[in-house]
């Protein structure tokens, strides 16, 4: 659909690759790419009202939210959420990954504590987004920071980060408008999805596998080097072990914590002590073999 060269250029430039945590990587890339097109082609019209400019900036993102929001609404409905609650969850949690996870955990009848804990660990990555945007928000009021934080998520972060980095005139207030536009589109798509879900009779087992497939896709998209694969295997083994041991979904939380920590510790060890380790070999993705500047060419020395 779009060329990899452009995506990767922006990826390295904005360091976004590091924080592609929510898994909605394609969405973000798409938004960034369209955004890049917009930046190069659009001549800013000084008379254009603010709400128009920010709407234009956020439009690629808004449009890509529609199908995913619809799917999320359908799944939440299948998991037992009514339409009003689906709207509330979209406004107050406003995170695709988290909402898909809620749907998934509800269908496996996970207890409240497990779901909230999993949400917490999943949402911890926002700390990275917030901290990288923080330098553009130093002059804003405490109240503004609070409001800004409530509706920040992976995708609008990507758009705003790029705008802040490339457009000197981009203000926190405009960034907040982008957040609110994306929030509006996301919530409406979720509501419509929920209504579609209540109109159709959907087989839960099949719906559930949609989530499994989605998570699998997210895993594949996160694989950057051999170490990631190893950590994924470790996480798999630990997950089985702790699920059977605890007889509850708390096992998922424990496995996640331990294996991500092993990943962190191992990477730290390898980078400082064994920089030529094969585990640090980058995995080339199929679709980016020529343009990926980030990939360090492997010399045949090992």
């Amino acid at each position, binding site marked *: 659909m779009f060329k990899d060269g452009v995506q990767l250029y922006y990826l390295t430039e904005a360091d976004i690759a*590091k924080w592609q945590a929510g*898994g909605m990587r394609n969405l973000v890339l798409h938004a960034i790419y369209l955004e890049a097109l917009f930046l190069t082609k659009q001549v800013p019209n000084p008379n254009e009202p603010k709400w128009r400019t920010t709407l234009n900036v956020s439009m690629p993102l808004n449009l890509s939210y529609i*199908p995913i929001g619809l799917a999320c609404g359908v799944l939440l409905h299948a998991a*037992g*959420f009514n339409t009003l*609650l689906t709207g509330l*969850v979209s406004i107050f949690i406003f995170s695709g990954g988290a909402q898909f996870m*809620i749907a998934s955990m*509800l*269908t*496996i009848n996970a207890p*409240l504590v497990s779901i*909230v804990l*999993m*949400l917490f*660990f*999943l*949402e*911890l990555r*926002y*700390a*990275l*987004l*917030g901290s990288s945007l*923080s*330098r553009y928000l130093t002059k804003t009021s*405490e109240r503004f*920071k609070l409001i800004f934080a*409530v509706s920040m998520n992976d995708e609008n972060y990507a758009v705003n980060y790029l705008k802040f980095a490339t457009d000197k005139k981009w203000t926190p207030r405009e960034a907040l408008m982008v957040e609110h536009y994306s929030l509006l589109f996301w919530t409406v798509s979720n509501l419509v999805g929920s209504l579609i879900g209540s109109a159709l009779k959907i087989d*839960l*087992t*099949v*719906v*559930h*596998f949609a989530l*499994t*497939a*989605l*998570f*699998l*896709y*997210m*895993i*594949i998209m996160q694989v950057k080097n051999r170490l990631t694969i190893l*950590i994924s295997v470790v*996480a*798999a083994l630990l*997950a*089985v072990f702790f*699920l*059977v041991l605890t007889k509850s979904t708390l*096992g*998922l939380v424990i*496995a996640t914590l331990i294996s*991500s*920590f092993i990943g*962190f510790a191992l990477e730290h060890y390898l980078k400082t002590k064994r920089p030529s380790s094969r585990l640090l070999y980058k995995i080339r*993705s*199929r*679709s980016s073999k020529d343009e990926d500047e980030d990939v360090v060419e492997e010399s045949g020395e090992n």
Partner: protein
Amino acid sequence: MAAVNNWNTSQHFLLIVLGFFVAFAPRYFPIKIFTQRKIPEWFNEWMKFVPVSLFTALVVKDIFVSSSYQVDIMGHIPEIIAAVIVGFVAYFTRSMALSVIVGLVSVFLLAVVL
């Protein structure tokens, strides 16, 4: 495998309220704090591995563990095969929509055949 969820509306509402706080805290406090200070590198490095671990754990639960928390491979053959197919589709196409659709179709067909 997927039992129908029997939570009521107020339980869902409680989940949203708690979910809001756990989603809000990591969004807000770093912005508040790091408008003054720098981010510790180790935190970034650790968080990098959270999503891949989390999603792997979720997938493993879906395809290898039964609802009574026992390792169950024979009961999940269609899901396991479909998961392998999804893995290949995701790797070669890098398309989320295609991965999910192929996954759904293959789990449906395999469940009929096997």
